[in-house]
């Protein structure tokens, strides 16, 4: 990895241009909320001004409403949390009729997350939402670890991903972002499949499959055996996968996994992410996303970076991965 930041004099925060672009969607800054950790946006609207965020990624919506998994759904682990929500959501109908209008009123840039057990379900969703004026882009959740059908493992197959995206591509002119599971042997392959299928970006990564045991009751702490691990514990893993994915494809990567601070966000951007998502941090601190944004802006100003986008992939070249002085 090579050092490319120029040592510059601090500049005013106002001079920092944070805008980034994902496909045709221009974002005022790269800080997004992560799907499933910000509800449908309005839950936090009394404490967070949604219009200052790059975008709000909504909870994954499915064709039919889903009640979600039986308790227990969350468990804390060392610097992380496991969840097994099971895609509880209000379903396509209420999402369109109730949730989108409220988000429009709040002047949020909306990225709608959609999830399906089959390519057909995703097509139904995109067929219905693909031209909604209130939606700036779509994130396709190919990576939920907590559903019996259509979860991360089902979508780990590059050929299936590619085929499905080809089908979806025809249904909307908005950017399509494919959200990938980290639990694959080589994320470059799933990322490349998404690019070939016509995705405008990929999100790396969703949660990692994990398990925590309640030893006294000799069963999982969750209602299902496994859940998805998120939070600071996974940051180094997510960062590695984001770096690998961004080195393998030409379309933008959206980073996700353990981002809690402006520095965390910048680490993802430096390894190649065009935007990042704040997830679990919001459960700890509802205003996390706007704080991350403010911290990022301050760091850039202090380090004299007038343009965030010039930092994207600053640390990227896989060739520079080897140590400077090789030795037997």
């Amino acid at each position, binding site marked *: 990895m090579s050092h490319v930041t120029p040592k510059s004099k601090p500049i005013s925060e106002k001079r920092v241009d944070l805008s980034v672009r994902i496909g045709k969607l221009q974002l005022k800054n790269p800080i997004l909320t992560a799907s499933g950790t910000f509800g449908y946006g309005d*839950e936090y609207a009394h404490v967070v001004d949604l219009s200052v965020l790059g975008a709000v990624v909504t909870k994954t919506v499915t064709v039919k409403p889903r*009640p979600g998994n039986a308790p227990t759904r969350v*468990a804390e682990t060392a610097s992380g949390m496991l969840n097994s929500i099971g895609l509880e959501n209000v379903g396509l109908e209420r999402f369109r009729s109730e949730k989108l209008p409220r988000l429009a009123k709040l002047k949020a840039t909306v990225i709608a997350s959609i999830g399906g057990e089959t390519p057909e379900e995703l097509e139904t969703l995109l067929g219905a939402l693909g031209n909604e004026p209130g939606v700036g882009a779509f994130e396709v959740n190919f990576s939920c670890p907590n559903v019996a059908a259509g979860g991360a493992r089902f979508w780990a197959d590059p050929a299936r991903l590619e085929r499905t995206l080809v089908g979806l591509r025809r249904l909307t002119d908005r950017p399509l972002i494919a959200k990938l599971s980290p639990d694959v042997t080589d994320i470059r392959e799933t990322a490349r499949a998404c690019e070939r299928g016509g995705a405008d970006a990929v999100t790396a990564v969703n949660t990692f499959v994990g398990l925590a045991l309640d030893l006294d009751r000799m069963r999982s702490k969750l209602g299902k055996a496994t859940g998805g691990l998120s*939070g600071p514990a996974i940051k180094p893993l997510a960062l590695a996968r984001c770096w690998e994915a961004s080195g393998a494809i030409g379309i933008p990567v959206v980073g996700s996994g353990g981002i809690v601070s402006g520095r965390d966000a910048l680490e993802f951007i430096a390894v190649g992410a065009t935007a990042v998502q704040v997830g679990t941090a919001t459960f700890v601190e509802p205003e996390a996303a706007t704080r991350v944004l403010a911290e990022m802006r301050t760091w850039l100003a202090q380090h004299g970076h007038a343009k965030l986008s010039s930092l994207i992939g600053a640390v990227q070249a896989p060739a520079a991965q080897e140590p400077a002085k090789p030795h037997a």
Partner: protein
Amino acid sequence: MATTTRTWRQVSARVRTQREYGAGFRWLELEMPAGFAAPVAGQFVQLLLDPPSPVLLPRPMSVASVSKKGTKLVVGFLYAPVGTGTQAIARLEPGSTIGVTGPLGQGYPLDEPGTPVLVAGGRGVAPLLMAADVLAKSRRRCEFVFGARTASLLVGLAEARERLAKRGSKLHLATDDGTRGFKGNVVQMLDRLAPKLAGPLVIYSCGPHGMLAAVARWAMANGARAHLAMESVMACGTGVCRGCPLPRSAEARDRVLATGADAAPLQGNPEWAMCCTDGPVFEARELDWDRVE
């Protein structure tokens, strides 16, 4: 039922006092900054240790008292240091700070008609003493049933006795082993007590889930209403993560399905209620007690 007007904030509060409270419990008082709405009995907050914290998530804690000291709102908590997070809270010295998100959830509907019967198990006593105070202010005396396995677990008994006496309410003690008061559990106590009270009864209860389920069943069998303060493992505490489900009763399920968004403004899940926003206080008929863990 959940309301869409959200008043909670995340603030930094100052530890005013902290002390042993007996039976392994501690009493914590926080001074809240301006802008923090006064919680009502049955509501809770999320306590977040300042960084660097040994735990990631905030810890839900029922509000045990609310008072004004000068212009300052002071909120009290009665808690047990059971694990890493609460043990770290226990080490906070007066003057140190802690993050508080709240007030959260639905408190007790203390204006329901009927004879109020408050049923406390163990540390559940605290929010109910707070409820007794509120009832007293609207000149309603209550019957206060306080139960525990054994006398030494009747936490804060002296204080309860004093505060209830002042308000003209009546304290009924029950211990499983008979070391104090009635020998038996709070439901057996309710059986004994009910015939002497003017109906309808409206029960407010807080305690272990096993006790709450028994109280809920008693209420449904005896035509009383009962409002029970539940707990669940939580992440956000604000309805967003969908991490704290409690099983709805068939009745509640049908009602959610029939009335849709109106009956459940937040998300309208017919299967599961969220402890943090639909509760933590639930009327007995809202939950499926066979499936409550």
